[in-house]
């Protein structure tokens, strides 16, 4: 099952992302702030990270930077930025290569789901490049359904 890490401080927005992804076969892990997010990432790498920019302790950009320098984090997964600021949409792709797309709040569920699908499949996360025995929880949702 594909695991998605959702980093968002607003409880309702977090809930919104969670119910929509879970209902479509994703495994969702949540983080309320930057500190929790980095702790999660050190623990295991998700198939995708959905990241809010305005967090109480760190910004989303801080987390992306720390990811690349922290030796305990494998930063080879795509990231979907979720922000209320339109200025955040114009980011330097070279500086944050993991960022696949930036979606601006407010957004429709359709848009969110399309962005998630796109991020996971476009970047090859849909095929299990690490092999089935990796245990990283990155199997595509259809392989999970296929088993059940």
């Amino acid at each position, binding site marked *: 099952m594909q695991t998605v890490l959702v980093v968002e401080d607003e409880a309702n927005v977090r809930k919104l992302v969670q119910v929509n992804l879970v209902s479509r076969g994703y495994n969702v892990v949540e983080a*309320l702030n930057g500190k929790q997010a980095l702790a999660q990432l050190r623990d295991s790498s998700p198939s995708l990270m959905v990241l809010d920019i305005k967090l109480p302790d760190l910004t989303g950009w801080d987390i992306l930077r720390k990811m690349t320098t922290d030796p305990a984090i494998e930063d080879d997964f795509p990231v979907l930025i979720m922000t*209320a600021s339109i200025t955040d949409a114009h980011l330097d792709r070279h500086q944050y290569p993991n960022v696949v797309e930036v979606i601006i*709040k*407010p*957004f*429709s569920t359709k848009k969110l789901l399309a962005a998630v699908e796109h991020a996971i499949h476009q970047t090859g996360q849909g095929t299990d490049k690490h092999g089935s025995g990796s245990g990283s929880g990155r199997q595509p949702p259809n392989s999970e359904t296929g088993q059940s």
Partner: protein
Amino acid sequence: MGSTQPEATDVEQHEEFEARYQAKQRLRIHYEVVRALTDSDSVEDTYREVLRATCEGVGWELGMLWIVDHEANRLYHAGLWHAPTVRAEALESSNPFTTFARGEGLPGRVWATGQAIWIPEILRDEGFVRASSAAEAGLHSALSFPISSQGEIIAIIECFSYSIHQPQEELLELLSSIGGQIGNFIERRRAEEHIGRLNGELHQRVNELQTLLDVLPVGIAVAHDAQCLNMSINPAGAQLLGLAPNANPSKGAPSGDQLPFKVLRNGEEVPVDELPMQYAAAHREALRDVELDVVRADGTLLNLYEYASPLYDEQGEVRGCLGVFVDITPRKAAERRLALQYEIARILSESNNIEEAATQVLQAICTTMKWLFGALWRIEPESSSLTNIGLWHAADDRYKEFAQATRQSHIVNDDSLLHRVWRNDRSMKIDYLREDSGSTRARMAEDIGLHQAFAFPVHSGDEVIAVLECLSKYIRQPDASLITMFEAISDQFGTFLDRKRAEQEVVLQSRQQRLLAQAGAVLSNSLDYETCLKNMAEMIVPELADWCAIDILDADEHLYRLTAVHVDPAKVQMAYDMQRRYPPNPETGAAYQVLRSGQSRLIPDITDEMLVASIKDPEQLALARQLQFSSAIVVPLIARDRRLGVLTLIWAESARHYDENDLILVEELGRRAALAIDNTQLYSRAQELNVGLERGVAERTAQLEETNTRLLEEIVERRQAEEQVRVLNAELEQRVAERTAQLERVNEDLKKEVRERQHSAQTMRTLLKRTRELHRMSEAIGKVRTPDQVMDVLLKSSYLRGVNRVSIAIFDKPWIEKELPPDSCTVLAEWNKDARQPRFLDQRFSLEEYGVAPPYRFGEPIIIPRMKSYTSLSEHTRQRFADLRTRSLIIFPLTAVGQWYGLLSLHFRSRRATIFDDPRHVRGLVDEAAIVIHNTRLLASEASARREAEEANALKIRFLAMISHELRTPLTSIKGFATTLLAEDVQWPSEHQLDFLQTISEESDKLGDLIEQLLDLSRMEAGMLRIVPEAQALESVIDIAITQLKTIATNHKLVVEVRPDLPPVNVDGLRISQVLTNLVGNAARYSPLQTQITISAQHIDDMLQIDVVDCGPGIPMRDRARIFEPFRQLGDETTGHHGGAGLGLAICKGLVEAHGGQIWVQNRSDSGTVISFTVPVANST
């Protein structure tokens, strides 16, 4: 036959028997005496035995012995014998003390007559003095005979009998004869005893002597024959000479060559016949204190004192010789070393250079220590080698070649003795030079018989700077004192080297001083600078240069050659020719470059490449090469910033080179020369002025003289007429006096005029100087950019010498003429001479406090030469200046673009500052400064306005971004859940649908509140917030909010502590309840669940203060000032939980301030936050 004639026979028979008996008795006596003599062991024994034998032989009962004491001339009792039957205690006890004189008593008579005496009855004899005691003892007959030896009586024997015996002549004769025998015997025995004693003593003495010889630490030799061939020597002597103990050194060895040691005197070997013992024996002469050196078989050397004395036999012929040797080696060594040290000290104190000292020191050391070769090696640390700088060797051709090889040589061998001494910093030696591996010198030394080498380090401070090396033919073991001595010599040498170095420096310095002094003398010698400089150039050659040239800058900025000096005039001509044919290029010539840069140039080494590079013309190059330049110094001549010319010094044929020290000296010469030029130029100008003055004086003097002459003529005339007009004399004298006084007055006037002229010239010079300075400062002020820099420039002015404090203050508003002055001014910049003085930067002062007091003179400087008595200022202000130690003050106005905008004040500790003479000079400067300061302030205020505008813009952008974010967040939930519900691919359970709709509703409310808050905020900012205040009790305001408050604080304990006696407040109830709701909402949001939230109120002046207290974590000090700004929020990092848009406190602030109150965060030491606000009390408005 005897029986036939009995009577006749009896008589005959009796007579015959008597005769036989007497003969037998005599025989017995003789026999007994002889036996006694032979049996006795000593003389005393002999006497006793003879006495006994005589008495027994005679058959008498008692005998006495008397011995002659020739010295006392008396007889004394020497023994008594009696028959065992006799009781003779009385005689025995009295006799020992009895003595007889010659002729006294019986023994005295025998002694006097020399004849034996027989007394038949002593009682009848008148001459027997002891008759009474004899009678008492019962003695009757006595006989006495002498014992004599060689015709002299030595003892008397007495015999006594209890019976009366008639004298028998034969017996007496016999006894007399026996007495002679006994005397001879005793005499012989006595002689024997004496000889025995003498023998014993002799033996003892011989023993003692032998012991003495064995133990004496002095060498003693005895020759047993006149040729000194057979000789004995004591152990000490054997040891000294290096012989086996008890060896006989010269037995059978008359030739000196065969002695196991060599004897030297003053270094020369002594022939055998001149050795002291041989000489003493041969010449029958005792020798004393002969000083000799002995070289023992093992090569060691000994210093001896020898004494020799011939021995004679009974005939007075020489039979041998006695020699005594004393070892004086240690004493001689100490003496030599002491003498050596004195000698070295003397040499070092008298020597002029190291080489001279080295040779003498080495000679002294070697001759004293009997070393044959010495060398001093200087250490060259750079090349790690040693260089020979001095040597000495004994006068022997053998050493000359070795000396030649040593002289000026370098030793780089790391393992040589010299290197090891250097490296280990201690003295070392090699006994056999062939062991000094790898040294060709060592092999050479061995070949010429030098075996042992000593080497000692020479120090300067802690550093080894040289090594001293000595070579010797003989092998000697160094002792501690030798090492000590060489350490001392090394120190002496080191000190010498240090001193020489210091002396050389002093010589160098004194040479420079002398040159400078000479230059000074030459330069001040004449007022014609050309002569001076030519003289100076003459002086420099040849001491400091082969060439000296001086070039002077003329009015066209070209250098012309004033002088060129060389010892050879032909060369000087050549240099002039060259200068004419190839004048230096003003662009590239070295002299011009030096003159332009003002920097001296030192060329330590002029190479041919340099010539080739700088000279293009081949002919000129050939000429230059011919001059053989080796080094040069080119120095600019500059005085008072004026470039006057160039001084050039060159070494050529002497092939010497300049260094930095020379450069310093030449620069000094250059400075002095430049000064001389400048002085003479100044002088000539002054001279011109003076000439004018002098001409005036001369004219006046001529007039005076003329008058004087006329007067004199008059006086002469008057005098001639004196005889005739005596009456007019007084009048004449009167007139003379008047004229004299007149003349004096004229003279005085003239002097005064001269003084005035001089004074005005002085004033002119001062004025010129100041104008020049003002011009320079004006230029400098034009370049600065800040008020502080302006002050720095001003402070450099000589006018402001002595200034204690400078400050620049700006008026609150510009001072327009004929309008009221501004109230105050603010200090913009300041400078204090004493950094400890108080600073007033950015402080505001009234004009009076700053020193400006009415009556005001618009735009004029204020000069207060004596602050203490300047009563226009208040006592308080004057005290303030006194505290700053300001005794005098000048305040200049600062004006720009027609406005008087500020003040510049100069504080002085004294009133003697130059500026007080004429402050107008500085005024111009300050005016320029004022414009600069004005401009800098304009620039600063423009920059500040721009910065503020930029900040406001940034704030606006930030504000919009925040609003956008805050609005979009609830919208995200609303839109998200709405589209979630609309999704076609998922069929949501109904409870989920309900939850989503609930969330949409909540977020819509939030959005509504937010928009309301934003509207409030924008109304406030636009001043359009409507407040409708009315008097009401605080409680009723709280009542409006209480339901909402309770909802907010559901999970907390809400306590309202409002006393009912508080006055009513004049507020818009809805708005203040909105404030309370906001504050309690914040408290509930940030404090732990179930903790207390308190609302309390108190009456302070005409306000009510309301406090909202919670038990939360409190607000950090750094955030307190900003929490009332919009969109400020205290993030909770641990939970990420916060609510609201961060507008609440900003709105509260707006609402409270709209009521005329204030809102703030209280400082509380314990945890929790207290937000307080005030609202007006109703009756006060």
